[in-house]
């Protein structure tokens, strides 16, 4: 009885004293922490918030939030829309199977406005407020770089789906960033040698005056000069240029054998229209580094001229391509772009591969998923391309088939506007400078992130 009483008493004491003790302890701890913070300049009791996130999420099956950082306005609005559809398709396929790791996937999208500052703000908000597990999407290299800096700060994996500046997997590479589009150097490798042979040695570069344009033209210049050609002039085109009349007059005065453009988005659309108006599409050899499908889709076949690169085409004669196109048309009926292009393909493939890695890893832990993605082999059949692809572990750049294309003068149907001239193996177009320029942060220097 007494034992019981004793026992009850001690329990009562525990119960009655416990709150005051813990309050006192808390107050003492807080005071000590404040003194410690003042002395050391850090807040000792506020551990890295990444751990807080793990605690908050671990016991529950909360939806897995994916932040889609894609442009809906500005120069790359059209491409941003297409890559969003690609990512959404991959997410839908996983959700149809029950999500990933038993968690439903929720996609949230915010317009990055083709503006680096907006990209940073969106990334910060998606990670800090929306608890996005991963960030996906970018077309503009400045935006991609801005997002990746924020992502690296938190340790959030970021997929650069469609920005093709060589700097993205070069000097601006990050441990958390994976680049899925072919880059300017890949496309230049695929085009330049043959173009010099076919057109002549005197070239003019037309360069969009920002990172992608400069790095792409730099790669083209190096290859032209290495193959005995000469760059007679480089015309820098500020972003959002709508009137190219002075450039086109200058080109006529320079009379080059070929004009290599590194101009994207709405700028290339305006340029194309004005080139066609002057009928310069027939009088000059145009080498367009890469041609994104949304940039040419609405222009009409007469505006597609010159030789250009791409990473995918909807009429590739490969198993699975027709089904892929049919799935797009079924999921997105009545779209202005009736068939998917390279931008959609990149958005889809990148998202799908990421979710597969999460599934295989059995975790959303960033380091585990990063290790799964690094060096990942992807079969040609699976990616609907001619050659196997892989994720270069040194640069985080997807090495994939590059296609050379031109306008299709014998289209099989209305949308069949590309004629694929050749396909080049990834190893033949590799960006050999990237590995030297890219300094990935160590795993230890990358914050652990798991949501």
């Amino acid at each position, binding site marked *: 009885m007494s034992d019981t009483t004793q026992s009850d008493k001690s329990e009562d004491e525990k119960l009655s004293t416990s709150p005051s003790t813990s309050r006192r302890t808390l107050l003492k701890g807080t005071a000590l922490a404040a003194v410690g913070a003042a002395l050391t300049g850090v807040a000792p009791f506020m551990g890295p918030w990444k751990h807080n996130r793990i605690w908050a999420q671990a016991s529950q099956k909360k939806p897995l939030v994916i932040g889609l950082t894609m442009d809906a306005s500005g120069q790359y609005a059209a491409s941003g829309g297409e890559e969003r559809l690609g990512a959404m398709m991959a997410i839908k396929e996983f959700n149809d199977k029950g999500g990933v790791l038993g968690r439903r996937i929720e996609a949230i999208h915010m317009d990055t406005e083709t503006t680096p500052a907006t990209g940073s703000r969106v990334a910060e908000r998606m990670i800090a407020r929306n608890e996005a597990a991963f960030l996906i999407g970018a077309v503009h290299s400045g935006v991609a770089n801005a997002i990746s800096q924020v992502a690296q700060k938190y340790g959030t994996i970021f997929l650069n789906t469609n920005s093709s500046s060589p700097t993205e997997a070069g000097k601006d590479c990050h441990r958390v960033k994976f680049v899925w589009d072919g880059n300017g150097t890949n496309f230049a490798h695929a085009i330049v040698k043959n173009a010099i042979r076919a057109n002549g040695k005197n070239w003019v570069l037309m360069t969009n005056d920002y990172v992608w344009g400069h790095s792409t033209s730099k790669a083209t210049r190096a290859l032209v000069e290495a193959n005995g050609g000469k760059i007679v002039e480089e015309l*820098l085109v500020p972003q959002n240029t*709508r*009137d190219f009349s002075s450039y086109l*007059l200058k080109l006529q005065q320079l009379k080059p054998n070929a004009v290599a453009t590194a101009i994207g988005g709405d700028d290339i659309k*305006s340029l194309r*229209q*004005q080139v066609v108006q002057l009928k310069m599409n027939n009088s000059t050899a145009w080498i367009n580094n890469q041609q994104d499908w949304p940039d040419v889709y*609405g222009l009409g076949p007469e505006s597609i001229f010159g030789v250009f690169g791409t990473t995918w085409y909807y009429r590739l004669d490969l198993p699975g391509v027709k089904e892929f196109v049919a799935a797009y048309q079924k999921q997105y009926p009545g779209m202005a*772009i009736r068939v998917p292009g390279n931008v959609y393909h990149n958005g889809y493939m990148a998202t799908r591969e990421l979710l597969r890695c999460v599934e295989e890893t059995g975790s959303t832990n960033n380091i585990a998923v990063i290790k799964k993605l690094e060096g990942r082999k992807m079969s040609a059949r699976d990616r609907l391309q001619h050659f196997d692809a892989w994720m270069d572990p040194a640069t985080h750049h997807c090495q994939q088939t590059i296609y050379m294309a031109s306008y299709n003068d014998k289209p099989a149907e209305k949308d069949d506007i590309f004629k694929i001239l050749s396909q080049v193996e990834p190893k033949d177009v590799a960006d050999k400078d990237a590995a030297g320029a890219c300094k990935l942060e160590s795993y230890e220097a990358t914050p652990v992130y798991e949501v």
Partner: protein
Amino acid sequence: MPRRLLFSSMDFFANLLPHLVNGVSLGLLFALIALGFMLIVGVMETINLAHGSLFALGMYFALFFVAPKLGWFPELQSAYMALPVATRYGIALFLAPLFVGLFGMLLELCLRRTYGRDPLYGLLLTFGAALVIEEVIRLVWGSNEKQLPLPEAISGAFMLGDLIYSKYRLFASAFAVLMIGVLWCFLERTPYGAIIKAGAHDSEMVRALGLNLSRLRLYVFGLGVALAAIAGVVMAPIWGIRPHVGVDAVVPAFLIIVLGGVGSLWGAVVAGLMVGMVVGLTGAYASEWSLMSMYLLFIAVVTFRSRGLFGKKSVLEV
């Protein structure tokens, strides 16, 4: 040696001349874009931030009249499409500004509540209208790039010397000159123009004389918006048609009217020509500065003449 110098100077001028001509043509187009903006700011003292979106709406209405998609009325569509492109283009050039102008009048009715209040209300309303118009365009026509079909007579190119020029650009520049002339005649040679100018100068006096100021503002706003739409129709084949194209128009338009002096027709024309010239020349000789050059010109002018080139001296200035 002097002979060589002479030849090299001649070469230089031979190279420069096409760029000077191009600068004038570009300037006329810039002036055309700014005309409607100038009229509304000058008469109503309202900065119409929806100018760009109304410019874009003009493009889309033109597209509708040149290449309509009347899915529910296939016979009507085929009958209409049987008309020559030139006729359809002429219809577009007339009807697109008319419809957009009527829409502008509706917008002015909404804008009335902001008169006499903080100018920020007017700015906010027109900014909101710009966003709504752009989204409506996206919903109706989609976000993809569109092209405006052109009549054969004004499409393609012609050779002058050993250089190729665009026929359409020549047409657009000539049309800009025509519009400037028509607007000048309207403002300077008709009683309506006199009323509009009087309204801009002293609206209270106009009201005291028994003229309906509200109606005047309604018509002026409609006319300014119609001019934005005309510029949109003319620029569509050069810039291309997309929902957010208005941003490319509103910034130079704003810059040109401040540079030329608010409310001055000839100020807008001269400023447009100056902007066209610097953009054209820098595009040819220092291409990376081609867009920046107009802002540098603007800074240079307003530093020394804050009311713009042709702006009237304020009574507050000594």
